[in-house]
């Protein structure tokens, strides 16, 4: 054991030039904290006897401070006003100003140890707190090490903790069962990274969008891995499809990918991204609870069987078109509203041109999977959740269709009581759109889509 600790300490303190606290050592070696304190002291001594000043220590001193502190505590009125005690009750209380027992816990560096001792009237204990390669200017380094403790070592249950480390035992602690909390990866950064590619795509997108999509998919996949570990394979497969399908026709994608279940909804969404105009709004980093949402959605989505999935896909196809139109609409609104003065104008035509040929091609193929409108409700819901992932996937179908200006205020959407106004607007617009159906692609989709649906979809299988 002794070699164990000294080699560990030597490696960490002398080689890595890191600071080791007794808590860290006890966690590393799974030993009692008091043992760890001893080891640290021994290490400090041996090293310094070998070479003076090769290692440095901080100490924790506990004790009772000199009465200096007490006097400062006497209550004096800071302004010199005299008090007029009015009630008899008050006068009674004035007399019982009792002494308050005070004790101190001081963390001091080697150099300050004497000073710390002197400030105490009575010393209860002194023990080594940490060992570090050289004198430290700032005890913040020590607190860093303490923080590291939390990030590196999982919390044990109370009983184990007290047995191994000597933490005060509390038999009555009950930890609730439940999924262990999700590991806290630095999600915000991740999400923000994949937002970036999404935004750039549209510019490139007049021609086949293969590269951007894959790019975005890659990044997206990274994120998914966290919760979608098992589905990774499918994801990969999907990825294979992506370049090809996007380049030819988007409409085909869903059909080809008969097998992929949940991911299909993602992938469906993906090719659409390129169409999105570059809206330079900053996406809010999805925060933790967002991801929780995703989890839910996953759980919910998985049990869905093949049929619904296929139907979903078809539906999404349809939804996608609608949404595109809406986006178009929104973009226009935004322009009018001056929020996004930039790039959008030139892009509109681009997007449309991309859209229409594709749609034209799409419609024949699409015949089969046109969904019954009623059935679309659950599917939509599912996707809706996905949108909560928002930002990255404005293109993702669903929520937007029902109500989402979201692109601008992602946060409001996950609260259900999202501001009514923004929600209403798109709806109205979409309705208008559908009625007037000014866009060609949409018409095709609208006619070809919804009527064939279920029967053909069964045939296909």
């Amino acid at each position: 054991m002794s070699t164990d600790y000294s080699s560990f300490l030597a490696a960490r303190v002398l080689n890595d030039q890191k600071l080791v606290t007794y808590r860290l050592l006890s966690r590393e070696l799974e030993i009692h904290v008091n043992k760890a304190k001893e080891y640290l002291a021994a290490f400090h001594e041996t090293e310094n006897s070998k070479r003076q000043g090769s290692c440095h220590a901080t100490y924790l001193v506990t004790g009772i401070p000199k009465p200096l502190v007490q006097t400062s505590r006497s209550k004096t009125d800071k302004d010199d006003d005299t008090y007029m005690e009015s009630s008899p009750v008050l006068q009674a209380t004035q007399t019982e100003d009792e002494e308050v027992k005070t004790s101190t816990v001081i963390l001091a560096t080697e150099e300050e140890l004497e000073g710390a001792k002197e400030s105490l009237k009575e010393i209860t204990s002194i023990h080594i707190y940490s060992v570090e390669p050289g004198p430290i200017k700032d005890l913040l380094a020590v607190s860093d090490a303490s923080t590291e403790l939390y990030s590196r070592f999982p919390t044990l249950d109370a009983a184990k903790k007290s047995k191994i480390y000597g933490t005060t035992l509390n038999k009555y602690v009950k930890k609730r069962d439940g999924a262990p909390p999700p590991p806290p990866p630095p999600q915000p950064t991740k999400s923000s990274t994949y937002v970036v590619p999404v935004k750039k795509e549209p510019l490139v997108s007049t021609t086949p969008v293969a590269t951007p999509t894959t790019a975005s998919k890659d990044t997206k996949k990274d994120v998914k891995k966290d919760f979608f570990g098992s589905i990774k394979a499918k994801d990969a497969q999907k990825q294979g499809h992506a370049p090809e399908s996007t380049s030819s026709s988007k409409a085909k994608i869903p059909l080809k990918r008969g097998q992929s279940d949940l991911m299909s909804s993602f992938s469906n969404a993906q090719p659409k991204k390129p169409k999105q105009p570059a809206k330079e709004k900053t996406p809010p980093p999805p925060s933790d609870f967002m991801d929780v949402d995703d989890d839910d959605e996953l759980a919910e989505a998985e049990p869905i069987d093949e049929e619904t999935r296929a139907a979903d896909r078809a539906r999404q196809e349809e939804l996608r078109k609608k949404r595109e139109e809406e986006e178009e609409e929104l973009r226009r609104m935004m322009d009018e509203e001056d929020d996004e003065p930039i790039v959008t104008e030139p892009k509109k035509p681009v997007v449309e041109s991309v859209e229409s040929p594709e749609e034209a091609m799409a419609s024949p193929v699409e015949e089969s999977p046109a969904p019954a409108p009623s059935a679309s409700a659950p599917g939509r819901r599912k996707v809706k959740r996905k949108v909560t992932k928002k930002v990255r996937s404005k293109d993702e179908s669903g929520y937007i269709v029902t109500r989402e200006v979201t692109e601008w205020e992602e946060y409001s959407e996950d609260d259900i009581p999202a501001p009514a106004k923004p929600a209403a607007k798109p709806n109205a617009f979409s309705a208008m759109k559908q009625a007037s159906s000014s866009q060609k692609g949409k018409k095709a989709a609208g006619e070809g889509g919804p009527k064939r649906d279920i029967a053909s979809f069964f045939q296909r299988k």
Partner: protein
Amino acid sequence: MASETPVFERQQTVYETDPQFQLDTHSYQTQYVDIYFLRLAKLKRIVEAHGRERWDNVEVHGEPVRRVERVLDVRQGELCWVAGTIYMEMPLKPNVLEDIAKDHFISAPPPRQKYRDFEKDKIVIEDESGRLQLTGSKIQTEDLVTGCVVGVMGTETANGEFEVIDMVLPELPPQQERSNLPKTPSQQKKYVAFVSGLGITGNIHESIETHLLVEYLLGEAGSPEDNSKSSSISRLIVAGNSLSEPHAQAADDAAAASPSRATKSKKYGYDATSYNAKPTTVLDTILSDLCASISVTLMPGETDPANASLPQQKMHPTMFPTAKYYSGSTFIPSTNPHSCEIDGVRFLGTSGQTIDDVFKYVDGDDRLEMMERTLRWRLVAPTAPDTLWCYPFQDDDQFVIEKCPHVYFVGNQPEFGTRLTHGLNNQVVRLITIPKFSETGELVLLDLETLECEVISFKSRSSGV
């Protein structure tokens, strides 16, 4: 190895939360006037009982003191007493209408430390019927605040003011006997620890004192002697401001990172991108570490993520993804103000806003005195809803103290202080002001048996600058 050193076991205490301050509904549709009405209805009876006791059959210069039912029934030149709610008309008090009027001018003046201005302030007593302005040196020095219910005795002067000769307060509410008091002092001490104003920032360098505190409470730091003491601390009450004030750092960072973006996306209202989850994450890890060994009651405070108006409701467990698994045993999110019973000792406490606000009305610095006054007024938050945000209660003014606590604590005060206060009916209350840990590094211990206080201060000394 573990056998070489004794295993310390945490002292246990029975804890019962009083749901007094929990809100079931969250409707802010209603008017605040009902609070004053309810308060007066509850306290007038009590004040009048005290008034009768004091002034019945009393004669001043041969004139008997007469009780008057309503404020408006006071007749000029007649010696009488009446009960009502105090309202302080203070020009320095923030006034919403004034704010709006000034909105178009220069930037707002800095918030005042005190509203009191002896020259200009008017003290008014009011009830359902009307108002009456109070004068006299007696009332000027009483340190009253808006919202407290009092009885005043005197006469109306020629210019329509009421000259106050004497005054009564509701005084301390009845107190229950402590059920747990052992006949002989027991060997094993049991403590309850208080801390407030941890002020966790989520910076990379969390203050070392906070870590020392955690280690001490867990019984890892110090000698076995220290550990044995820390194991006698049965629970910890965190009285607000666990997180530091959300300073603009996150926003600044965001702005610095994307100067170009700032111009493009103009957001109104809450900007989600500026949200910084770090402080709560750090607090969560600290709490989950503590909860494995000691019970923690977590009260929200002014800077914590809870509703801003009193009573502040429990912080939502989802903010504590790891600590929440201890809820139901050692992790107890609670309201502010909070009242509970621990081993038969009744606790009442707030995170500090109540006393901070009273402080602005009265002259002087003695926070303990202000605490005592709020007890004698039987109001936890007398100045709500005048200058302190609160929930518009409809059925019951929750801030009225009906049962006298044994321990009354207030968090986030400038310094530690404690003393006992005695009521007219032998009530004894331990008053404690809990300092901000982030500034003083002080943890307050309360001996559950003797109700004596101890302080443990955590410090660090380094040779560095």
